[in-house]
């Protein structure tokens, strides 16, 4: 009889644990570590785009979920393959690209995290100098897939000039 109660408790645990994860508040003490971890994932994501890394460890192919999608400035929606093709065709110069700061977790739903950051896109001006060409606040979406954080997509919202 003693074992039966232990078994029932363990069985219930399997349902209660995911439910607790969903109810986790956005501001908990554990968020700082998760925020740091996901910001590092984000920096790898930016590097993969800049370096046109399509496959292998820390590549777009590996880090992005199959259902990955971006809503680009201007409103165009692109899927994983379209975004990888776009990145692969780009000709980024050293020092240019996307530079995210101010990464903040906004919501945690179990294995899904929704975050925002401020991203500056840097490019070259007519004299070849590196300059900011666009400022955006970006929605970043992450999924923990088989124990590893991966990228679900983003929504890139240009910040209106003051």
């Amino acid at each position: 009889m003693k074992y039966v109660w232990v078994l029932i408790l363990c069985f219930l645990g399997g349902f209660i644990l995911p439910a607790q994860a969903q109810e986790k508040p956005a501001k908990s003490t554990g968020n700082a570590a998760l925020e740091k971890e996901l910001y590092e994932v984000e920096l790898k994501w930016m590097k993969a785009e800049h370096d046109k890394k399509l496959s292998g460890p820390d590549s777009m192919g590996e880090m992005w979920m199959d259902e990955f999608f971006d809503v680009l400035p201007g409103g165009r929606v692109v899927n994983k393959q379209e975004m990888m093709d776009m990145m692969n065709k780009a000709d980024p110069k050293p020092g240019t690209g996307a530079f995210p700061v101010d990464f903040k977790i906004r919501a945690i739903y179990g294995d899904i995290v929704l975050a925002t950051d401020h991203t500056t896109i840097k490019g070259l001006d007519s004299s070849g100098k590196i300059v900011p060409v666009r400022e955006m606040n970006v929605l970043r979406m992450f999924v923990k897939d088989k124990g590893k954080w991966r990228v679900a997509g983003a929504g890139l919202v240009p910040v209106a000039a003051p």
Partner: protein
Amino acid sequence: MRYASVFALLVFSSFSAPAFSQPAMKMGDKDWVALEKVLDDVNNQWLCSGKYYKAKRQDCVDFRAQYWADQFFEIGQTGNVQDKAQMVASQTAGAAKTPDVVRGTGPNPQEFKLMAVYGDIALATDHTIFKVADASGNLSVTSEARVLRMFVKENGKWRPAGAALVRIAQ
């Protein structure tokens, strides 16, 4: 010993259960289309659009305050990020200034498309057209946005979890 094996299996299952992130349905299949329809309706309720029109602006704000998930947040068209409390406060202030809503004004969502489902989180996009009415009630478009909309299923019910509004280049 037999109990020990069962015990070990159940303990293992309680830890492995949260690993749900692989989508259970595929884009275009029957379940996907059905969920897309449900979420399209949730979207219309969220925006008080179409058959969910509310004549008083504050009624819509009050409804949203109940309907949105607690962790709701939104990136507006100018890049402003607001959480649920901030959204409700700013919309309440707007409702005090302009209490009545002309039917068809405000956000008009169309082209709703479910993009990804991860367990109890669904991600979608739509094309939202914002309209205003002039003094004689004629509607005109003020802006258009491609909106990334997020939904969460809580206690068996889908609710809005947030959005990012990307202005469509004219």
